[in-house]
């Protein structure tokens, strides 16, 4: 039976288009139960945006949860990865407290994860797929990319307390240069380090503008040792590799370097990113490398992934991406 395409809502069309995109790139569909043992989240509570989870006791007395997240389950269920890269995509409902309404909400999420021997090529592939996903949703989309390692290395060099790190991260994520200045003064960080942190707030936009500024600020800086400069060079180099991949794919106009994209330093590392679509007030896509989460869950391999929050797309007036064929 040929299904009339008009029967599908914008959200459903986008969902099918994304699944089609990921399958086309060799990702396998990963299905999960709606429920997960609560213990999984209890051990990794900070990984979730909100610590609140809907729980219930199953008939065997086991405390269960309605899934607030997909990534943790995928990592839990993939133990023996070895030297390969496992490429999975999913389309699941998750249950979280909305930070805006502070009530539980069912959120439809489509996303993908790569677990295993994740290398530069794999990272670029995932970022390009994130960009392609945005294109499926709208012609007017931007992907903000950051390298969390730059901030981590800077924190190590500053030697500040965890509390100050959190305050600084919050200022960077809200582009709050005046607040950052006050925190740096209170923490007695000195003008040179304060200026570098401020660079992460004030330097954003197209890679051609941002990368040379970063190189000047971090690599031509007498504040750092040779080893420290080398680490910064590698981190900036990782951004450059993504820029090259985007240029090759003709998607460079979608790319912004922006350090206001931040994630929990306990779980994420390296490249992290967030996607925005014109006319939708919230980010619609979010992802990054989470080797630290893998380590916490006793995995020796690396990982990267992203999720598209389909519920945020309700504000899109039309589905103006590529035409989707639903098939027979």
């Amino acid at each position, binding site marked *: 039976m040929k299904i009339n395409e008009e029967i599908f809502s914008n959200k459903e069309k986008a969902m099918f288009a994304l699944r089609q995109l990921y399958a086309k790139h060799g990702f396998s569909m990963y299905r999960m139960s709606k429920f997960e043992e609560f213990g999984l989240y209890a051990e990794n509570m900070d990984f979730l945006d909100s610590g609140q989870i809907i729980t219930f006791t199953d008939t065997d007395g086991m405390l269960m949860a309605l899934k607030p997240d997909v990534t943790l389950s995928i990592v839990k269920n993939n133990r023996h990865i070895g030297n390969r890269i496992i490429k999975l995509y999913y389309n699941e409902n998750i249950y979280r407290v909305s*930070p*805006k309404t502070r009530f539980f909400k069912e959120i439809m999420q489509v996303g993908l994860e790569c677990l295993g021997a994740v290398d530069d090529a794999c990272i670029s592939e995932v970022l390009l797929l994130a960009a392609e996903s945005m294109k499926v949703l709208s012609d*007017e989309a*931007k992907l*903000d990319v950051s390298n969390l390692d730059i901030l981590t290395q800077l924190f190590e060099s500053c030697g500040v307390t965890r509390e100050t790190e959190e305050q600084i991260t919050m200022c960077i994520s*809200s*582009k*709050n240069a*005046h*607040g950052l200045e006050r925190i740096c003064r209170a923490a007695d960080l000195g003008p040179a380090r304060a200026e570098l942190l401020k660079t992460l707030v004030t330097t954003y*936009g197209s890679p051609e503008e941002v990368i040379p500024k970063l190189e000047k600020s971090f690599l031509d800086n007498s504040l750092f040792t040779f080893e420290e400069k080398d680490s910064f060079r590698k981190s900036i180099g990782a951004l450059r590799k993504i820029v090259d991949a985007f240029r090759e794919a003709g998607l460079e106009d979608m790319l*912004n370097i922006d350090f*206001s994209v931040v994630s929990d330093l306990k779980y994420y590392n390296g490249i992290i990113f967030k996607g*925005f*679509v*014109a*006319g*939708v*007030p*919230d*980010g619609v896509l979010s992802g990054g490398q989470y080797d630290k989460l893998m380590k916490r869950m006793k995995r020796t391999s690396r990982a990267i992934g992203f999720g598209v929050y389909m519920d945020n797309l309700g*504000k899109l007036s039309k589905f103006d991406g590529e035409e989707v064929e639903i098939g027979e």
Partner: protein
Amino acid sequence: MSNMINIALPKGRLGDKVYDMFEKAGFECPAIREKNRKLIFENPEAGVRYFWVKPSDVAIYVERGAADIGVAGKDILMEAGTDVYELLDLNVGKCTMAVAGPAGFSYDRSNELRVATKFVNVAREFYAASGTDIDIIHLNGSIELAPILGLSDVIVDLVETGTTLKENNLEVIDVIADISARLISNKSSFKFKTKQIVDISRRLESVIED
């Protein structure tokens, strides 16, 4: 997508002051000065559209994208935990968020501390940091009355000059944060209207008075 920048301003004295700053920065909209009941004012040449909203609602308008940018008090941003960019401290509407109590009050930790406030989340976070057990009493106004009538031990509130506290025999015990009006931006709007928003922010920065 319209290229006009939608700006949410807080109704009242602070809003008037803030509009003066926008005007000085070159984003005037003379119709706004007319005394009428209109809510939206446009100046297509300057590329701006202003609207007045309740001060506590500005952050919501911006976070949800109905306004691209807006001006909100830091107290409101702290309480709501709004997910927006905070681009500038406009240095107006200055006061402090403080804990105040009866003169000479000291908390001996033998009982739960009763805290009356409008800023429930700020108070909870402040006391959680020191592991203090508190009973929050959410009030909507006349907070200073609470410790006088024995409803609470202390209050968490905005203190401008300290005169009201003094007249009621209360004093500041702890300062939580310096408060002032902030220029905020919706994160998504900032991606697609970067040039205009950065231009407004830079020009506003040049008219901030110390």
